[in-house]
């Protein structure tokens, strides 16, 4: 059976609402655990208010944060899925974005970068972004939306092989401290670190690591998994908590993604996904039924190309 543009539009509209309103369970559990251990008074107050806020959002069906970010999509197409038109799929995502912006409502954040003109619907040139991937032996299409603010908490640096792990730690500390002050990064955050690739893939990997992996998930390489844990502990040892107040709640979890890179370099990117970590995924099955979840399951073994074939 063929998946239609109407199925896509229905699913995309629904995940736009879910992402804006319902905090994912993995992130909620992570924040609850941090609230239990936070010793800084003000930082603890902030976490408690955030937990109240998640409840209010779900009860009232209103966005958990008014800065509903730059809504965007990640599409994973099963190799056996059949869709009559991929252009129609992208058109459906655009329509769902505009409709959800009006109906939820989302803040129409998207403006022209130079002229600041807008259409009040989060659509525009190259917006929203749609990233594509494929999955073998599957007949479904997964669509994930991420609503992430975009002003603070992300940085890129070209390191070199000689910098080693120390260089990454230095860069991570620089970024967390600089953007953590006054809480501009809206921490505690899921921190995504991209290592390697070319500069653009490095940024992309870090962003996807922050936004498309759930709290508690570990990289399949046990050495990288150890680094994820070590970097999380490092961030939480800065002495800074929520809103940059004295405390320990900086990093809910740390995810690292790597890509083979130029022999002379080690590009690194750091991304922070905020206190309103908004993501939602829909799976459109081959018979047109739709199921919803909060784990994008983006990084599959095929996605990482773990083998060499």
């Amino acid at each position: 059976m063929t998946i239609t543009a109407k199925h896509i539009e229905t699913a995309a509209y629904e995940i736009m609402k879910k992402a804006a309103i319902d905090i994912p369970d993995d992130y909620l559990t992570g924040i609850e655990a941090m609230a239990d251990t936070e010793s800084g008074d003000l930082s603890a107050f902030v976490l408690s208010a955030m937990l109240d806020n998640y409840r209010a959002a779900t009860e009232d069906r209103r966005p958990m944060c008014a800065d509903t970010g730059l809504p965007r999509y990640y599409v994973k197409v099963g190799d056996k899925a059949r869709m009559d038109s991929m252009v129609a799929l992208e058109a459906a995502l655009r329509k769902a974005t505009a409709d959800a912006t009006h109906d939820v409502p989302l803040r129409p954040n998207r403006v022209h970068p130079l002229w600041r003109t807008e259409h009040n619907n989060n659509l525009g040139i190259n917006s929203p972004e749609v990233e594509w991937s494929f999955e073998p032996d599957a007949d479904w299409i997964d669509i994930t939306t991420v609503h992430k603010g975009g002003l603070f908490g992300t940085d890129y640096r070209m390191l070199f092989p000689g910098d080693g792990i120390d260089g990454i730690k230095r860069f991570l500390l620089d970024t967390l401290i600089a953007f953590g002050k006054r809480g501009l990064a809206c921490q505690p955050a899921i921190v995504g670190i991209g290592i390697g690739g070319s500069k653009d893939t490095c940024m992309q990997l870090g962003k996807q690591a922050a936004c498309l992996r759930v709290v508690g998930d570990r990289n399949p390489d046990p050495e990288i998994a150890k680094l994820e844990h070590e970097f999380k502990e490092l961030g939480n040892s800065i002495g800074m908590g929520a809103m940059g107040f004295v405390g320990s709640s900086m990093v809910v979890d740390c995810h690292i993604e790597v890509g083979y890179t130029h022999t002379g370099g080690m590009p690194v990117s750091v991304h922070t996904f905020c206190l309103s970590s908004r993501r939602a995924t829909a799976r459109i099955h081959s018979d047109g039924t739709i199921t919803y979840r909060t784990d994008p399951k983006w990084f599959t073994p095929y996605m990482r190309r773990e083998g060499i074939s």
Partner: protein
Amino acid sequence: MTTAPTRKTHHLTIPVKASDIAMLKPGDIVYLEGVVYTAREGVYDRVLEKQQPLPVSGQSGSDLFDISNVNFHCSPAAAILDDGSYKIGGVTATASFRFSKWMERWLDLTNTKIVIGKGGMPKEDYTNILAPRGAVYLTTVGYGTGALLGRGVTSVKDVFWLDDLGIAQAMWMFNVKAFGPFIVDSDIAGNSLFAEHNAAIAENISALYDGLKPPALSRYGETDNRKDEVM
């Protein structure tokens, strides 16, 4: 689940009185009732740079700053419904430091006494601009309590320049009730909660880098001296 520590909490009615403001200390919690207005770069540019007149509120044409002396650095997640009414979903602040250059003229023009936003402003602004005018700064909490603040907005009293500036930049006047929580950053003595916490955290920062080897290449991002070489 941990219960948050109890903090001194104030429930203030807008327009806020000088005696109310005087009670606020850094770290206190505030909830507001009355009318708050929003203003971000679009509004400051229009009024202060382009010298366009301030809007008036209601059919009586009253000066809106007699109604509200609370400036919220905010743009709501809002929509205009088919019947012309407004739906306000989430309400969150935007980073205030970007508006610092306008605050002195704005406070003089409008007699605003409470500024609410994200992240505070430099301590010098509190000392030199807000405190001498009897004004204080409140920060929103966690920067994401959009649903709690959205609940606190009972209705839209007015919106100005919506067509010209768009939903995000327009000047909104919200009727609010139990609107909060906000944390007091600056008091009328010009103290800053953020500055105090930054200073406390800064004491430990250099120790975090102890034992890490120096970078292979110094580079922009680690220095802002443009005369330095990156090698």
